[in-house]
């Protein structure tokens, strides 16, 4: 079985605090996975380790058969890991279309003098993306003028435009209304099925997790606590107790 991502005893310590503790996560190519867990359980730190923001204290990260642990952020991205931040991170002073042009990989060594019309980033691909994100009408709008939910979708689109093999989505529905959350669930589902990109989602919202109908990994105190489908996790007494804070 080929795994797109595998962490082996991955550990990150900040001084005396162990944020991620010997986590071994395996992810199949093309899969969709939710990571669930209470605040401070190390979900975001795990993302920061995978995407190169932090260097692991010990352990390894294997992506598509290559050891990427401790590599700089931009090289990890070039290898094929795209990441969406928790706070919507779009380029506010640029138009929606320009936002989608930035991630195009043929830009990594951007040309100094060619005119804008020859910008890499296939126009057809951008139109398809805009359509998928339902932002076609906002093509020439400044990204800073979009609503919170639209910014979140735009950023997901930007990550897609960078053509990753693995997408890390950090709480994509944070701050969204119920309707927007539904739409986001649909979008992620569609991406996962249509493009074959492997997706890992960090999430708090159980309803959203249910809609995604993916395999769920529960993290607790920096390690993997349970793994299973949504129903198994929902009925698990131990998971309930860590979420509700009961003494175990």
């Amino acid at each position, binding site marked *: 079985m080929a795994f797109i991502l595998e962490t082996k005893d991955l550990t990150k310590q900040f001084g005396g605090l162990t944020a991620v503790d010997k986590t071994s996560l395996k992810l199949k190519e093309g899969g969709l996975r939710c990571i669930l867990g209470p605040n401070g359980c190390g979900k975001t730190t795990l993302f920061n380790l995978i*995407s190169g923001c932090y260097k692991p204290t010990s352990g390894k990260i294997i992506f598509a058969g290559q050891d990427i642990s401790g590599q700089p*952020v*931009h*090289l990890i*991205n*070039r290898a094929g890991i*795209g*990441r969406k*931040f928790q706070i919507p*991170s*779009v*380029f*506010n*002073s*640029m*138009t929606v279309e*320009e*936002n989608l*042009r*930035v*991630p195009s*990989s043929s*830009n*990594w060594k*951007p*040309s*100094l*003098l*060619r*005119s*804008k019309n*020859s*910008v*890499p980033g296939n126009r057809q691909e951008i139109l398809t993306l805009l359509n998928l994100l339902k932002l076609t009408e906002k093509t*020439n*709008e*400044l990204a*800073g*003028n979009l609503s919170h939910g639209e910014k979140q979708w735009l*950023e997901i689109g*930007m990550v897609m435009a*960078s053509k990753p093999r693995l997408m890390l989505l950090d709480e994509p529905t944070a701050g969204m209304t119920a309707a927007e959350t539904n739409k986001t669930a649909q979008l992620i589902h569609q991406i996962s099925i249509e493009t074959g990109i492997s997706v890992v989602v960090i999430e708090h919202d159980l309803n959203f997790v249910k809609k995604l109908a993916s395999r769920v990994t529960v993290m607790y105190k920096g390690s993997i606590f349970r793994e299973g489908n949504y129903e198994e996790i929902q009925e698990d007494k131990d998971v309930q107790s860590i979420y509700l804070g009961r003494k175990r």
Partner: protein
Amino acid sequence: MNKFAFISPNGRVNIIRIFVLIALGCFPLLQDAYLLSQLTVFLVYGLFAMSLSLIWGYGGILCFGHAVFFGIGAYIMALTTKGMIPGMTGIFTSTLFALLLSIAGTALFASILGYFLFSGRLSGPYFGIVTLAVAVVAERIATKWDYIGGFNGLTNIPAFSIGGYEVLDPLVLFYVILGICLILYLISDRIVNAPFGTILSAVRDNEDRVEFFGYNIANLKILIFSISAGIAGLAGALFAVAAEFVSPTILGFSLSTEVLIWVALGGREILLAAFLGAISVRTIEALLSDILGYYWILGLGVLFILCVMFFPRGLFGQLLSNKPRN
């Protein structure tokens, strides 16, 4: 509601561009030799301001020591054309060679400085403070170094010469410098509108996001920093010719902050706005400083505060912008 709705934003910007070029080109018709020589120097300051706009307005890099590059360019020009650099004689003391050396020298210095600063991930106010320190150090060195004139600087800089022909007529010098400014403007405009410029704006908006798309931020910043410094160096070299002197004050703290004010007043996010900002402030200064004396600086400060409060995009920034309003 757009006041200029009857023409497209791009059309409006182009009209203003042509208008500025014609206005500057027709200026000598006033037949005032003093004003002409002043405006020649202001053009050079405008070019300098434009180079700062490249990194500050487009790249989001706030450099508090930009006069260092201007000053280094000016000193290289002065030392080279005066034949004061050991081992360089004959053609190596020509104006054109000195100009090229000024650009290359400052760009090289900036790329080395930029390598250390940007690879160390220095940004924001920290970057500003370090560049400020560089400016102060540079000014001290120039003041104490007798070979390059020390406190008094260098005078009697040879006139601008092209292939043996000396430009002694202020009118010709004015047009030569206007032409160089135009060429540099077109090149810079091309850069900010090329894919590189798009990525640069993205870095200004959200550096982390760009890095997580596979870009090497340090390299991008070093490149634009060097280009900007090279243009500032060229402006400095032209200053040396136009003003016929160089002194430590042009590579220090005060010119570094002055250029920041010109650019902020004009509009840092638009090259032409920064250029006009420098020329306007210098022109007003020339007109008012006789009357106001030392109070001029106070007036400039008030103007600066008012501009930040009411025209955050600069006096010319909104007018020259072809983007929708935020």
